[in-house]
């Protein structure tokens, strides 16, 4: 419809309501007005008794007749008549005049000639009669006066008759007029109603059109959503393909690693020279790091494809923190940093969480903090969320280099590192924060960060971890290894290095292993010999792990019931589900480790549960595993100690001292500072432990002085801090400062040895 309302389709409910109200107002207001007019008219007629005019005129005429009759009677009466009765008749007649001349609607008559003429004549009559009636008794007996009145009345008679007729006509005119008005208003009402109907119909038409348009839009949207769903399905299929590719790749890359790491682990047992041991350590560290990096990349892929699932179980929170603390403390100490980790007292003990992933987040944030903090301290705190919120809050605070707002903005983006120049020196994949944030979000939380360049950064992680009941104590088996019998194990593994590794591993565990290269061979062997368990690699030529399992389950006899453990590096949850569907009993992850395998065997009911306490078991199945889940789990590798030595010792000052003092004096001096139990550091620590404030103050002051002389920068800083706290404030000197002092002492001594070494060279 071309009504000039092209945007009708965009009208909202309010606009429709407004338009409708307006329409109703436009039609109902005149209708209401007409009704009001009619009501007023009827009331007016009723109040003013308009139609009584005719009655009044008739009554006037009648009263005149009665007066004339009375006067005639008085004239003809033989004796005197009652003058007052005559006067009363006259007065009644006069009262009738007012009823015609003073009523509200006298205008109906006033315009007519008859009315004016008659009223004039009546007034003339009254002027004549009034003086005569002033003395009614005299008038009653005076026939001459009575005769005059009668004579004056005579010509009034036809006039009053005319007036009555005129009144009748006036009323009729009034009624006609009123009827005409009513008719006119009736027509108006009909017109308005018709208009209302027409406008309503237009509105209905527009509405119908609007609805039709919406229906068309709805159909289009449905079609679009259908197309989108199809596109999504295609994209998902593509993504699934990608995840399969990733799983395959992870297998291809990690299989040699399994061999490499396994071999390195085995080598460790052999007797090696210290140099060889050192090379071996480096090789293992590198391999572990590489595996960690690989895992990071895999994490990102799985997070991206949405296939990563958290496997939640009751987790002992303080335990996790303690464990991470144990690993990270080393890295912090190596770098000369203080790492303080606190678990709040009111922290829920057991929560439902994925311990592995929780640990990964902690490792990432703390290792980042250590990486980017040249000196000072890192503090990690795990507390309950503030009042009214559920969950826990992890705060990681460092005194590192900090970040500017621009850096903060891009911090969580992939491969981004705060300082590109640092990249080579510090290393790392740059995936850690992205992974952590995704994991935290999966746990129903988020990471916030605030930082100031040169001051430090604070990462705050909020996690929704539902509290859980502590799992019931499991029976701890008496034997440490949990190994009770020798098992006959069939291993299907195509990779020669892995084959070798697994052979040694199983041998060490005391099991009897038979090897084959693929599923087909495994089936043949199963038909010929009896085994307790089959270890199947997921990826194998000819017949892969799943297909082999299916085939095994289809075998005749007891061989079909054999326990199947699938060895896989595949982290895609999909795979596990499919594996369980085809009849796999257990899983062991690649690279295969003794503990892992032991547990898998135990879960199959072939062995007793290995001798882990239930606490540790619940913490994580691979809490102390030799392989890193992420590159961030590894101790931070420091390029060079001398890098931080500058922060510890002012070389210039120290060189001066060395040059000035004989060697034994210097040794003596150092002893007074460092050697227990008389060394100032130790005395100060003892005072700290006892809480003797004045002793703390004195010794801190003394230490500060000596260290300033020697140029032990970090010790000066810390002792000055302790002194300040002890003497200038009422605060308790934190124990952490004592620990920091001790650590700095060790580092300083280390730096001094390094210094001497260089001097010697």
């Amino acid at each position: 419809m071309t009504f000039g309302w092209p945007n009708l389709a965009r009208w909202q409910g309010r606009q429709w309501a407004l338009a409708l109200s307006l329409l109703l107002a436009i039609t109902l207001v005149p209708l209401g007005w007409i009704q009001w007019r009619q009501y007023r008219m009827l009331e007016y007629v009723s109040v003013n008794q308009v139609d009584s005019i005719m009655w009044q005129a008739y009554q006037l005429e009648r009263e005149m007749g009665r007066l004339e009759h009375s006067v005639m009677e008085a004239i003809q009466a033989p004796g005197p008549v009652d003058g007052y009765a005559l006067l009363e008749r006259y007065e009644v007649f006069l009262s009738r005049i007012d009823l015609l001349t003073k009523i509200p609607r006298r205008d109906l008559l006033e315009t007519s000639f008859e009315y004016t003429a008659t009223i004039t004549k009546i007034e003339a009559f009254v002027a004549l009669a009034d003086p005569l009636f002033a003395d009614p008794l005299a008038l009653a007996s005076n026939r001459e006066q009575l005769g005059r009145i009668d004579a004056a009345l005579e010509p009034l008679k036809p006039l009053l008759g005319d007036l009555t007729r005129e009144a009748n006509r006036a009323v009729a005119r009034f009624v006609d007029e009123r009827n005409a008005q009513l008719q006119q208003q009736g027509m108006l009402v009909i017109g308005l109603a018709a208009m209302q109907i027409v406008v309503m119909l237009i509105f209905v038409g527009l509405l119908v059109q609007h609805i039709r348009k919406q229906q068309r839009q709805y159909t289009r949207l449905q079609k679009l959503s259908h197309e989108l769903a199809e596109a999504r399905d295609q994209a998902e299929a593509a993504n699934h393909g990608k995840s399969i590719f990733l799983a395959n790749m992870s297998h291809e890359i990690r299989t040699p690693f399994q061999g490499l790491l396994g071999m390195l682990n085995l080598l460790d047992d052999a007797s090696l020279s210290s140099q060889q041991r050192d090379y071996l350590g480096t090789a293992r560290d590198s391999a572990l790091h590489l595996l960690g990096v690989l895992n990071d990349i895999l994490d990102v892929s799985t997070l991206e494809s949405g296939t990563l699932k958290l496997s939640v179980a009751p987790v002992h929170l303080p335990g996790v923190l303690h464990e991470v603390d144990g690993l990270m403390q080393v890295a912090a100490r190596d770098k000369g940093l203080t790492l303080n980790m606190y678990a709040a007292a009111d922290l829920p003990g057991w929560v439902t969480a994925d311990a592995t992933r929780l640990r990964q987040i902690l490792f990432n944030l703390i290792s980042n903090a250590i990486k980017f903090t040249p000196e000072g301290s890192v503090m990690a705190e795990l507390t309950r969320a503030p009042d009214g919120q559920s969950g826990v809050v992890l705060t990681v605070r460092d005194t590192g280099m900090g970040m500017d707002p621009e850096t903060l903005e891009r911090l969580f983006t992939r491969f981004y590192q705060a300082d590109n120049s640092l990249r080579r020196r510090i290393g790392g994949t740059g995936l850690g924060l992205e992974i952590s944030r995704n994991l935290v979000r999966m746990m129903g939380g988020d990471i916030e960060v605030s930082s100031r360049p040169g001051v430090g950064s604070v990462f705050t992680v909020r996690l929704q971890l539902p509290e859980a009941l502590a799992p019931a104590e499991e029976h701890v088996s008496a034997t440490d290894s949990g190994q009770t019998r020798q098992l006959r194990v069939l291993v299907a593994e195509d990779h020669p290095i892995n084959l070798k590794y697994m052979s040694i591993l199983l041998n060490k565990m005391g099991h009897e292993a038979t090897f084959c290269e693929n599923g087909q061979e495994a089936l043949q062997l199963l038909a010929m010999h009896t085994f307790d368990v089959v270890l199947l690699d997921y990826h194998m030529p000819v017949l892969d792990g799943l297909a082999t399992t299916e085939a095994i389950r289809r075998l005749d006899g007891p061989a079909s019931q054999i326990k199947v453990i699938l060895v896989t590096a595949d982290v895609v949850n999909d795979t596990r589900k499919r594996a369980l569907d085809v009849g796999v009993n257990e899983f062991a992850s690649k690279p295969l480790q003794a503990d892992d395998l032991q547990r898998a065997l135990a879960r199959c009911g072939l062995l007793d549960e290995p001798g882990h306490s239930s606490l540790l078991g619940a913490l994580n199945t691979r809490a102390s595993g030799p392989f890193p889940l992420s590159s961030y789990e590894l101790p931070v590798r420091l390029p060079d100690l001398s890098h931080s030595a500058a922060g510890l010792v002012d070389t210039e000052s120290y060189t001066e001292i060395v040059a000035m003092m004989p060697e034994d004096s210097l040794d003596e001096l150092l002893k007074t500072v460092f050697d227990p139990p008389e060394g100032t550091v130790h005395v100060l620590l003892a005072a700290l432990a006892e809480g003797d404030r004045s002793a703390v103050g004195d010794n801190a002051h003394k230490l500060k002085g000596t260290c300033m002389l020697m140029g032990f920068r970090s010790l000066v800083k810390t002792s000055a801090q302790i002194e300040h706290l002890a003497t200038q404030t009422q605060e308790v000197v934190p124990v952490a400062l004592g620990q920091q002092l001790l650590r700095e002492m060790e580092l300083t001594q280390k730096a001094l040895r390094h210094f001497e070494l260089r001097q010697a060279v």
Partner: protein
Amino acid sequence: MTATTTRRNFTTGLLLAGLSISGAALALDAPKERAILSITGKIVEKNAGDKARFDMRMIEALPQHSFTTSTPWFDKPVKFTGPLLSDVLAAVKASGSQISAVAINDYKISIPMGDVGKYKVIVARQIDDKSIPVREKGPLFVVYPFDSAAELRTSTYYERSIWQLKALDVQ
């Protein structure tokens, strides 16, 4: 016991009869001037045979009330003053359901007794504080307070407003 009661009742009846005969003059004085209103029918107090007659003084002696109202007979609202019709009827101890009112001009209308209690109907003797001559619808004018209720502004009640009132017959 019964005999005593009967005798007492009889004595009371006699006493009352005596009172009503001799007390008529006491309860309702005879008009001293020209009578302008006579009441007949079911009334107790009488001062002239079957009738009770009132002169203007007696009407004035009753409690006076006034209101201003518009009417179809005057082109502007006017003030009416006079005793309540109920007071007039009470003065003669009238009891009945209908009052037949008659005017000097022989106009006749029936007023239900209910109106008397329901509305503040007055027997006006003054319009705008001036006594009313016969030629101006006097001397007595029964008026309803038309402006006080919509239902009064109808022909029924306009008819009952009788002017030049001269007699009331209680039935």
